[in-house]
């Protein structure tokens, strides 16, 4: 499968970039061939709706999954329509670590939350 990861640098050792649309780089890793493509994000300075353009790069590359920290609401909708599964990496993971975690099934799927869920989580934390 092909995995799309947002990255702060252009190698597998780089830290995952938590932002989707305005990430510095993106890396596409093919688990079957081991091929790695890394590119600077051409949209990161875009004015508006950057997440959509960036998501289209992932779609055109034919990836099956995307890893990032934060998928904005527009990007989320686009990737979901394209059937690309979204996973959430931690701030302190490298691209390589995030990919391995995904392949081991240890990476959390990105699911939207509601304000109520956040509120309940907050209440628990502050008890």
């Amino acid at each position: 499968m092909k995995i799309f990861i947002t990255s702060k640098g252009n190698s597998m050792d780089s830290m995952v970039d938590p932002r989707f649309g305005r990430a510095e780089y993106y890396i596409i890793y093919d688990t079957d061939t081991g091929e790695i493509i890394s590119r600077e994000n051409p949209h990161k300075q875009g004015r508006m709706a950057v997440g959509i353009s960036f998501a289209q790069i992932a779609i055109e590359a034919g990836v099956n999954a995307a890893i990032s920290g934060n998928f904005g609401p527009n990007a989320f909708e686009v990737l979901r329509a394209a059937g690309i599964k979204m996973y959430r990496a931690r701030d302190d993971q490298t691209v390589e670590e995030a990919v391995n975690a995904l392949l081991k099934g240890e990476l959390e799927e990105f699911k939207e939350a509601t304000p109520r869920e956040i509120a309940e989580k907050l209440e628990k934390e502050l008890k």
Partner: protein
Amino acid sequence: MKITVASGKGGTGKTTFSVLFARAIAPALYVDADVEEPNGGIFLKPTIEKVEDFTEPVPKIIPEKCTYCGECARACPYKALVIIPPPAKKDLFFPELCHSCGVCAYVCPEKGALIEVPRKKGVVRIGRAGNLDFMEGILNIGEPTAVPLITDLKKRVKNYKGDVIIDAPPGTSCPVVQAVEDADYVILVAEPTPFGVHDLSLVVEMVEELKVPYGIVINKAQEGNTLVEEFANSRGIEILFRLPFSEDIARMYSRGELPFERFEEGLRKLHARIKEIAG
């Protein structure tokens, strides 16, 4: 004569003044162009005679004719269209990003694959409050830009025979420019606080660029407070009127009322003065 009332940020009393002024000089037409949050009607309490939809064309993809080539999505300057190519063959439209510019329809290479359909983006309400004609535009929540609706309001009042008071949106962004642009005179409402004077300076910058004659009205004016006067003097701008700070007025305002009679005479004199300057 078309007089637009503008201000810096929200909350300075622009609507308070517009409404008092419109009532004082009636017969006239009051237009609430603060389409994202029109509230002039709360105080004027008009009888609404007509409600018309405000629509703009948006793209609609006809799946049977569409080849999912993606031209429309590539050309869309606002990224409002997403095309997922075959085999998935999906199209996504983000209405809150669409500016109804027509690029998608223009570039689509397949005849009939992308058509434009009207999408309701707001309403225009028309009525009367005594001898004051009333019009307001209300933009639907989530619409990306207020400008087209304000342009529509302006078109509607173009041939009105009589004075028009346009209650502009707050601030200095595009919608305000649209509302102020071809006015005969602009009244700037300001509060005598450091923030108020600062915001006033920004609006003055905007109005100067548009080259429309203007003057200042001080809202919530207080004895001994000369913040706005100092600014006005330094720029040679006329102070047209002062609405005093009064808890009484604030309380009436929060109930949806205003002391119309109290300022009637003064405002009529102001109207005469403006006609002198720019009529």
